[in-house]
């Protein structure tokens, strides 16, 4: 049972504030992913929890106890580093046994624990080798083994698979998920890769320039992004963001984009919802993911004629750039649905997948149609 709570954390590096008023409660057994670009403060947060970094303000609580004055070695937390950090002069066995040797565990118990965890990670055959003789994936298995072996209160992972190649990364991602399901321990995982975050996390914490942007399940941050930053950071290809004007014509709302006279059709309730949310005209940004842009080959009710500009065939699907006025909107279609650039098609925006943001502040207006 381990809960971790961060209360009002502030951290400066010199005059630079790298963490600004961070509050976060992590439940027992939860897999939390800190997601953000490099320099957003996610690694600093992780290192502060580990005790490798001091904080300037706030409290870090583990199981309700403030730990900011407790040394790293006494926090009973394990950490996996991006560089693996296996001790090069020790064998795999000695590496995994190393944390246990710091305790008063008997030789037999150490041996049993090492072999047990090696079995779980399928590295029993490598125990006698030196880290330099291992592949990147195996090195990371050993590093994870070293972290798990003493059953720490919490597991911290700092871009643990960032240094691996794409195929191995996918494999290790599945492995980490399997281990967490099997071993179960409160885990904080840092990454800049949103795919990793989406696939691993119980909850994702998105940070930007030291400020927490949104906390939520992968589903929540994907379908209900709190602001433009989150909306564009999560999901690939990136969400379309265009300045929009909304007008009401004939019992329908029309959303004009890119100076185009025709607007995308929306239910009339949009107008009221926007005014309820205090949206000012001229300060409205429409966000829609490429899969929320629907395309038809022939004219249909509520669809607007547009021209295809660039087509990126990706095998399983195509990404098509559509020209709307002076703006581009990317749509996701079946492969080969649009045959070539310049082709005229009809497009509409799925109201259920449209997001509206305040252009000035970037925050979501919270309108779900």
């Amino acid at each position, binding site marked *: 049972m381990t809960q971790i709570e961060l209360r009002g954390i502030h951290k400066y590096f010199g005059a630079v504030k790298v963490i600004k008023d961070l509050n976060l409660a992590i439940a027992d057994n939860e897999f939390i992913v800190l997601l953000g670009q490099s320099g957003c403060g996610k690694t600093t947060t992780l290192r502060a929890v*580990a*005790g*490798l970094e001091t904080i300037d303000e706030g409290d870090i609580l583990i199981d309700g106890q403030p730990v900011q004055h407790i*040394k*790293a*070695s*006494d*926090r*009973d*937390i*394990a*950490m996996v*580093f991006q*560089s693996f*950090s296996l*001790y*090069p*002069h020790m064998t795999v066995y000695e590496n995994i046994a*190393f*944390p246990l040797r*710091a*305790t008063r565990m008997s030789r037999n118990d150490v041996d049993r624990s090492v072999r047990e965890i090696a079995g779980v990670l399928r590295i029993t055959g490598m125990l006698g080798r030196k880290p330099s003789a291992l592949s990147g994936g195996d090195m990371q298995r050993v590093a994870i083994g*070293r972290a798990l072996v*003493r059953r720490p209160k919490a597991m*911290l992972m700092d871009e643990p698979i960032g240094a691996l190649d794409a195929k191995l990364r996918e494999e290790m991602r599945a492995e980490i998920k399997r281990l967490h399901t099997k071993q179960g321990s409160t885990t904080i995982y840092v990454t800049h890769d949103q795919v990793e975050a989406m696939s691993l996390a119980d909850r994702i914490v998105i940070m930007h320039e030291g400020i927490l942007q949104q906390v939520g399940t992968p589903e929540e941050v994907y379908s209900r992004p709190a602001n433009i930053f989150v909306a564009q950071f999560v999901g690939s290809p990136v969400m379309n963001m265009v300045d929009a004007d909304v007008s009401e014509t004939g019992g329908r709302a029309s959303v004009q984009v890119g100076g185009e006279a025709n607007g995308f059709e929306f239910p009339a309730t949009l107008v009221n919802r926007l005014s309820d949310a205090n949206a000012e005209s001229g300060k409205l940004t429409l966000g829609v993911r490429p899969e929320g842009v629907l395309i038809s080959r022939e004219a249909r009710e509520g669809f607007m004629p547009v021209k295809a500009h660039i087509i990126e065939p990706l095998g399983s699907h195509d990404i098509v750039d559509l020209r709307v006025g002076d703006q581009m909107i990317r749509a996701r279609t079946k492969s080969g649905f649009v045959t070539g650039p310049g082709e005229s098609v009809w497009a509409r925006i799925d109201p259920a997948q449209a997001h509206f943001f305040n252009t000035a502040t970037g925050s979501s207006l919270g309108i779900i149609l």
Partner: protein
Amino acid sequence: MAAVQTRSERALNRVAITAVLVITLIFLAPIYWITSTAFKPRNLATTIPPTVLFQPEISPFVKLFTKRSQLRTAPTPEEYSAAPWWERMVFDGGEKIVRSGRGEVQPSGYPSRFMNSLIVAITSTVLAVGMGTFTAYGFSRFKVKGEADLLFFILSTRMLPPVVVAIPMFLMYRAVGLNDTHWGLIILYTAFNLSFSVWLMKGFIDEIPKEYEEAALVDGYTRMQAFFKIVIPEAATGIAATAVFCFITAWNEYAFALIMTNRRAQTAPPFIPSQVGSGLPDWTVIAAGTFLFLLPVAIFTFLLRNHLLRGMSFGAIRK
């Protein structure tokens, strides 16, 4: 690397190999000279042109280790035949071995000077490398206020020729009674080598990723334990390289040893040439003393050669 070499590449290669050979020979020549002289009979040591082919003998070493005096009268045939083989060599050279009243062979000053050299060089190397490693670790891992200035200050102690402080040092040593003591030389050599050791070790420790220690810290070890269990083994190469350089400096130091010591704590470097002055110089004995003096450094360097080679390329190659 191209598997096929062009003709010009091959020619260039040959020139390079020849140059390396020539340079190696130039460097080895004095060592050959000393070694051959150490095994020559005295009358062949100073011939012009030098004698290259000769029957090697060990009389120089017998003379090196014993106290001798000039023979005033030749030994009687009984004396000569009663003497052991090594004593006859000394008789042949026109000298006799000095014996105590009870007939024990009196040793020369060389063995004790050699011992002094070992004591002083080893102790000062251990101290300089040990303290240097700790200091370097501190500079490498912690935010030290005025780090650059302090490091420069440490290095600046080597910016003047040490001999210029010889007289003040001598006076200070005399005042505190460190003259002609082992500790006197050990402190001096440690101080010499420390700045070098700090700088060299800092380079090596900077190369060790600090994640290793951080991993040890979260694994439940204190910083001190992490230092000894992780940093020291990882820095072994650097420690070996630094130790070799410090040992060579301390072992070969001449000027201060000459000024600060004369008897009890005198090391081999000032002692060996002092033998030149008494009577006609016996170059074979001096060569024998020098030859033996070369051995510890040669052995030490040979034992650590792998570390040393890795040490030289450390930092140049990204692992």
